[in-house]
C-alpha cells in the first residue's frame, strides 16, 4: 500500500479510507486499521461488512458516478466483533485534469448518538403508552382552553377534539365552566381537584374527579395545564346509602317546609271558617290542606322510590283515567299560575299494566316540571301546558309539553340526574325518579327542549309488564323492581 497522503489523514478521529473504482481500499488511516485490520487492497464491503459482494446502495460508487459527495448511515462490524453505527460521507478525489481518481470515505462512529436516540424514542414510546393507556381521561389545554393533546381514553370517550375547547368536549357547553379549575391553575400554578359531571360522545353521563396541574417551560412559565379526570361513576353509585340519604334530606327540606307552610295556611283557613261559621272559608282551607297533603304524598313517594327498593304493585290501569287524575291534581296549581292546562286524551287508549302510584308520580313530576318552566319564563302570560295521551298496539304514550323557559344543552343532558335542578327551589329528585319509574316499567322518557321555546317529554310505557328475567344476572334489572 502507498504511504498515507498526510500525517493528518492517519491521526483523524474517524475511519478514513481512500477507495478506487474497483472498491478496493488503497489507503486507510490508523483508526480504520485498528478497527478493521490491514486492508491490503481488499474491498471496502469485505472489511466493513464482511460481505462478498458490494452493498446495494454504495455512496462510493455514486461519488465515482456523479462526482458529488454522498452520505449514508449504516452499521459496520469491527474486528473485535463490535457492531458500530457509522455516518459515512464519500467524496470524489480528482487529478490535475479534473478526472476522478479515487473516493475518500469518512465514516464517523455515531453509536453513542444512535443509542441515545434509541433511548429517547423508547422513552417517548413509553410516555405515549402511559399517556394513552392510563385508565383516566387526560387532556392538555392552552390558556384559551383549547385542547392541545388528549390521551386515547379521552378521545374514545369525548371524540377527536384536538383544537376545540375543553368545555365543549367535556360538557357540551358554549361557554367556560364557572369556576374553571384549568383557568385557576393557569392563574396561580396550584393543583386543583374538583368533582364534575361530564357527558361522553354517546350521551353517557359520568361523575369524574378532575385534577389539574400546571405544565411549565424551561423558564418556569405555565404554558399548559393538564386536566386528568378519573371516572368515579361507580364509586358514586356504590356510595353508602346513608350519605345519599343525608343529601336527600338536605335537598328536600326546603320543599317540605314549603308544603308544611301550605298545610299551616289551610288549617288556619279551616280554623277561622269554623269560628266564623264561614263555610266557604272552611272549604277553601280544606282544599288547601288536601292539596298540600297530596304534594307531601308525592314527595314522600319520590323519596321512597329513591331510598329503598320497592316491588311494583302491578295492576291494569286505564291510561286515560291516570291522565285525568294527574290533570285534576295539577289544575289548581296551573290556574293559580295563570297557565292553561290542556288535556288531549285518546279515549280509546285502553289499559296497561303498571304500578298506579308510580305512574301517577311519574306524570305529576313531569307536569310540575312544566309548570315550573312556565313560572320561570320571561313572559308574563300566555303559558300553556298540554298533556296528551295516545294508545298504540303495544304501548301507550303520554306527552307533557310546555312553552316555558326551556332548557339549554347542559340542562337537557343533566335533567334526569339525581340532585340536579336548574330551579332555585328544586330538589333534583323529580325527573330522576320519573326516569327510574319509566325504566322500571320497561318504558322510556324522551326529552326535547329549546331555551325560550319550551319542553316536551314523551313517555312510552308498554301495555304489558316487563317479563321477569331468570336469575342469570346476580342483580335483577330495573324492569323487575323499582330500586331505590
Amino acid at each position, binding site marked *: 500500500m502507498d504511504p498515507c497522503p498526510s500525517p493528518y489523514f492517519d491521526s483523524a478521529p474517524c475511519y478514513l479510507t481512500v477507495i478506487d473504482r474497483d472498491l478496493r481500499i488503497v489507503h486507510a488511516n490508523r483508526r480504520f486499521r485498528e478497527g478493521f485490520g490491514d486492508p491490503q487492497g481488499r474491498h471496502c464491503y469485505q472489511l466493513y461488512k464482511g460481505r462478498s459482494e458490494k452493498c446495494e446502495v454504495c455512496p462510493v460508487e455514486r461519488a465515482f458516478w456523479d462526482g458529488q459527495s454522498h452520505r449514508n448511515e449504516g452499521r459496520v462490524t469491527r474486528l473485535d466483533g463490535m457492531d458500530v453505527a457509522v455516518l459515512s460521507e464519500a467524496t470524489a478525489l480528482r487529478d490535475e485534469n479534473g478526472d476522478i481518481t479515487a473516493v475518500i470515505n469518512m465514516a464517523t462512529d455515531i453509536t453513542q448518538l444512535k443509542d441515545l436516540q434509541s433511548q429517547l424514542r423508547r422513552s417517548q414510546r413509553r410516555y405515549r403508552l402511559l399517556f394513552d393507556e392510563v385508565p383516566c381521561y387526560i387532556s392538555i389545554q392552552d390558556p384559551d382552553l383549547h385542547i392541545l393533546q388528549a390521551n386515547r381514553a379521552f378521545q374514545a370517550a369525548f371524540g377527536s377534539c384536538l383544537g376545540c375547547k375543553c368545555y365543549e368536549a367535556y360538557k357540551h357547553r358554549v361557554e367556560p365552566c364557572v369556576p374553571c379549575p384549568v383557568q385557576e391553575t393557569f392563574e396561580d400554578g396550584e393543583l386543583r381537584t374538583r368533582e364534575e359531571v361530564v357527558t361522553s360522545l354517546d350521551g353517557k353521563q359520568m361523575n369524574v374527579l378532575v385534577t389539574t396541574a400546571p405544565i411549565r417551560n424551561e423558564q418556569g412559565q405555565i404554558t399548559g395545564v393538564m386536566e386528568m379526570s378519573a371516572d368515579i361513576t361507580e364509586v358514586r353509585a356504590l356510595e353508602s346509602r346513608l350519605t345519599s340519604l343525608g343529601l336527600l334530606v338536605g335537598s328536600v*327540606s*326546603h*320543599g317540605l*317546609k*314549603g308544603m*308544611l*307552610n*301550605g*298545610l*299551616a*295556611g*289551610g288549617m*288556619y*283557613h279551616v280554623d*277561622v271558617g269554623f269560628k266564623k261559621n264561614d263555610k266557604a272559608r272552611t272549604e277553601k282551607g280544606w282544599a*288547601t290542606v288536601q*292539596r*298540600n297533603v297530596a304534594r307531601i304524598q308525592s314527595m314522600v313517594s319520590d323519596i321512597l322510590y329513591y331510598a329503598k327498593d320497592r316491588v311494583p304493585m302491578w295492576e291494569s290501569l286505564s291510561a286515560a283515567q291516570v291522565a285525568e287524575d294527574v290533570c285534576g291534581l295539577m289544575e289548581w*296549581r296551573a290556574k*293559580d*299560575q295563570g297557565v292553561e292546562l290542556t288535556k288531549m286524551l285518546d279515549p280509546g287508549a285502553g289499559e296497561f299494566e303498571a304500578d298506579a302510584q308510580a305512574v301517577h308520580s311519574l306524570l305529576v313530576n313531569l307536569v310540575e316540571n312544566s309548570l315550573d318552566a312556565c*313560572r*320561570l319564563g320571561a313572559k308574563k302570560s300566555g303559558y300553556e301546558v298540554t298533556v296528551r295521551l295516545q294508545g298504540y298496539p303495544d304501548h301507550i304514550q303520554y306527552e307533557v309539553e310546555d312553552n316555558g323557559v326551556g332548557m339549554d344543552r347542559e340542562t337537557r343532558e343533566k335533567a334526569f340526574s339525581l340532585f340536579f335542578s336548574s*330551579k*332555585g*327551589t328544586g330538589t333534583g329528585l323529580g325527573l330522576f325518579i320519573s326516569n327510574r319509574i319509566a325504566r322500571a316499567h320497561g318504558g322510556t322518557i324522551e326529552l326535547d327542549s329549546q331555551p325560550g321555546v319550551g319542553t316536551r317529554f314523551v313517555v312510552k310505557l308498554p301495555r304489558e309488564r316487563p317479563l321477569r328475567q331468570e336469575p342469570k344476572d346476580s342483580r335483577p334489572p330495573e324492569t323487575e323492581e323499582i330500586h331505590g
Partner: protein
Amino acid sequence: MADGPKTILVVDDDPDARDFLAAVLQDNGYAVTTANDGEQAIALIEQSVPDLVALDITMPEKSGVAVYRRLKEDERLKSIPIIIVTGVSDDFKSFISSRRQVPPPEGYISKPVDHEKFLTMVRALIA
C-alpha cells in the same frame, strides 16, 4: 291625610304561602298586596310604597336577596320594615353573608310560619 289600614306586601313564589300570610294579615285589619317574584315586588313598591314587606328568599326572576338589597340601598325605600320569611335556614345564612353594607332585616321567621308569632312581629314593627 286620612288614616287608612296599614299596607303590607307579601312576596312569595308559592301561592299557598302568599295566601296564608295575606289571609292572616287581612283578618287582622291590614291591607295586603301580593307578588309572586322579586321583579313584580319591586314594580308594586315603585307604584305604592307599603308599610311593611314580608319577603321570601328563594324565588325565580329576582331573589329575595336582590329585592332586599334594592330596597335597603334606596334612600326613599330603605325605611320600609322587612320580615324575611323562608323555609331553609341555609337560605337565611346565605342571605346574611350576601348582605354587606346593608342593615340587618327588621324581622325573620321560618316556615312553616307560626301565624301568631308572625302577627306579633308585624304589630311590633308597624303598630
